[in-house]
């Protein structure tokens, strides 16, 4: 897998020098400089993506969820195998960040110092990145609903990615996501990864955000052989026989208790540790194995790299004080699907529970009014569970969340409205409670998530004293 060497041209060099100089100045000023150097270089030469010298291999990782995890594990694995890797793991995943990473891998004379670029790409940036970059490999972890405002719907994102792909890019795709699995054209080589049926899984989809229900060939209603979440699972069309693609690299079984999975790569099956115990990250780990296969890494080396991953970590901060668990869940406001995954987890924790919820996005508080339609694109129905004794909703959109909870079937007498995002930490009774959930969003993690967590800790420690 080798690509033609791009010629060194004066304008390209000028842009790279401008970008590198900007990066150096930013670092001197103590800033990370992962986006601005690329922006400066692109201002000097807007066509830089098509002209910048590339390393021998370029891999792009994209998808709605898991692209950072997948990029990091992939880059680490290759680095540990002695490959000189350039990656934007610490920086921007937009066009500017990708350019900045590629510039970092060049000498001042424009010669590449790395063997392989592993580039995380925001999926909406595909049309600005892929036509010029023409990566050797594109890994897509999944495409599910995201922000209504920015991402519209996953079919739109798939169209953006597909229409920007070149025929010579090998696609590493999630076989269990029919939107992702159909990226590209028949001209693209496709390698699929997936997770086999895991025993007690559902065959009946539920929830508000199911984006694949009909056969892409004949429009007939699909039958789910395995349904996991949203449109992730395995389907068959009873009318025309269409099926989800067979995965080339697949988890045959997963054992959460022992933190392992059996992974089949070609004729070899290996037992490997799980990097994380939730299904999205299990897919990510299998995606890494598939990408390494495509990059020509030997099966035994892939197994050795994945076997050296850190032991499973829980996806949420979880501590117990005075017999009460405090579980902190990042619940990404504005993205219904992400909220559904957090809500789904709550009833699975044993005992009597209370939930403190402040999941509005702080970015829209002052000068806008948040489009709250996403609240109805999330499955609040998971919270209508008899083991949840009370739900405190705080923040500017508390009335909207309260109404949504009640429509979802939560008894209105269990819903407590609190004006501030942090006030519930003082109001909630911690007697006769087994678990308290602290749900916050991305932008208010520091200003609400942290103080709520601290206050709950403080109150429980007072109880101990």
């Amino acid at each position, binding site marked *: 897998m080798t690509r033609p060497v791009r010629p060194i041209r004066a304008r390209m060099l000028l842009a790279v020098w401008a970008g590198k100089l900007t990066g150096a100045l930013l670092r001197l000023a103590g800033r990370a400089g992962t986006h601005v150097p690329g922006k400066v270089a692109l201002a000097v030469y807007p066509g830089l993506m098509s002209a910048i010298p590339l390393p021998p291999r370029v891999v792009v990782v994209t998808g709605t969820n898991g692209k950072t995890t997948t990029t990091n594990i992939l880059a680490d694995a290759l680095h540990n195998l002695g490959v000189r890797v350039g990656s934007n793991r610490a920086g921007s995943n937009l066009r500017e960040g990708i350019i900045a990473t590629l510039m970092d891998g060049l000498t001042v004379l424009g010669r590449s110092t790395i063997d392989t670029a592993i580039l995380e790409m925001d999926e909406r940036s595909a049309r600005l990145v892929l036509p010029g970059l023409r990566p050797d490999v594109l890994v897509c972890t999944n495409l599910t609903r995201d922000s209504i405002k920015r991402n519209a719907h996953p*079919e739109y994102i798939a*169209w953006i990615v597909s229409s920007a792909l070149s025929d010579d890019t090998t696609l590493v795709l999630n076989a269990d996501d029919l939107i992702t699995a159909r990226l590209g054209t028949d001209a693209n080589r496709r390698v699929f990864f997936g997770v086999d049926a895991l025993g007690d899984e559902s065959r009946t989809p539920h929830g508000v955000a199911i984006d694949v229900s009909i056969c892409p060939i004949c429009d007939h209603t699909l039958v789910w052989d395995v349904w996991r979440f949203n449109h992730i699972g395995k389907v068959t069309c009873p009318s025309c026989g269409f099926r989800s693609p067979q995965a080339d690299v697949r988890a045959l079984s997963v054992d959460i208790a022992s933190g392992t999975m059996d992974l089949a790569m070609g004729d070899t099956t290996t037992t490997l540790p799980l990097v994380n115990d939730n299904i999205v990250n299990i897919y990510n780990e299998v995606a890494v194995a598939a990408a390494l296969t495509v990059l020509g890494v030997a099966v035994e080396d892939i197994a050795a790299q994945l076997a050296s991953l850190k032991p499973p970590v829980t996806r949420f901060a979880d501590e117990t004080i005075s017999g009460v668990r405090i579980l902190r869940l990042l619940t990404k406001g504005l993205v219904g699907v992400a909220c559904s995954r957090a809500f789904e987890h709550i009833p699975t924790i044993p005992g009597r529970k209370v939930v403190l919820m402040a999941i509005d996005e702080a970015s829209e508080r002052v000068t806008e009014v948040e*489009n709250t339609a996403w609240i*109805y*694109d999330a499955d609040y129905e998971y919270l209508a569970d008899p083991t949840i004794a009370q739900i405190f909703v705080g923040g500017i959109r508390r*009335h909207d969340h309260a109404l949504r909870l009640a*429509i979802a079937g939560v008894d*209105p007498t269990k819903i407590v409205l609190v004006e501030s995002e942090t006030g519930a930490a003082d109001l909630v009774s911690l007697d006769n409670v087994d678990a308290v959930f602290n749900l916050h969003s991305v932008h208010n993690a520091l200003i609400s998530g942290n103080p709520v967590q601290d206050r709950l800790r403080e109150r429980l420690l007072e109880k101990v004293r």
Partner: protein
Amino acid sequence: MTVVIEMLFPEIANLHGDNSNIDYLAQSLGDVRIYRTGLNETPRFVSERVDLVYLGPMTESGQIKAIDRLTPHGSRIAELIDSGTHFLFTHNAMEVLGNRISNAEMNYDVPGLGIFDFTTTVNMFGRFTGKVMGTIDELPHAIVGYKSQFSMVSNAPNVAGFLTAERGIGRNRSTNVEGIRVNNFIGTSLIGPLLVMNPYFTESLLSSIDPTREPTLALRELAVAAYDARVRDFNDAARWSQAELLVT
């Protein structure tokens, strides 16, 4: 009376949480029968009494499928609109009833059912997002909602609007006439969902669908509190950007 609601093509018309319009309406009606008619089924409204026909937001390819399935029943839909059957078509659903939908980026230009005299232009790289606050004749309370869409509908001077936007845009950025209101047909590009976000309007709709009963809005106190908070915010000019207002 048992109110009969037909949701058209829920397997493809389910974006943006808008099907909660029907969940909430059903909770308010109590005595209700909901038919969820799939793409490959004949709509109930063709041969049975249906009190409300609902079509929700779709992808661009979904719109084309909806046009394909509804075209054979175009004259029946027109007849039901004329005779006063209730329809609620939200977001891009009403666009299937216009003359054409053009999408240059996706390279198609397809005829719609032609029931209403307007055209739709889809711009895949020009998604419009914004708020709308407007009035309708029968209510003293403002209608509020959100727009998040690739498409704009032409001005269509011969087709009555659903509301007049006092803030935000209408069918496109040059008019404050939003949506369509012909008899009991309501088409609007507002999401939210509309009926959840506008309790007073939903009460009036309940009365209109079933005049034999006093309207009982489910979870009224919570719904009105959320509405009041939103109207307060929408009345704050500082919360509106130039990009979501009419081009003057």
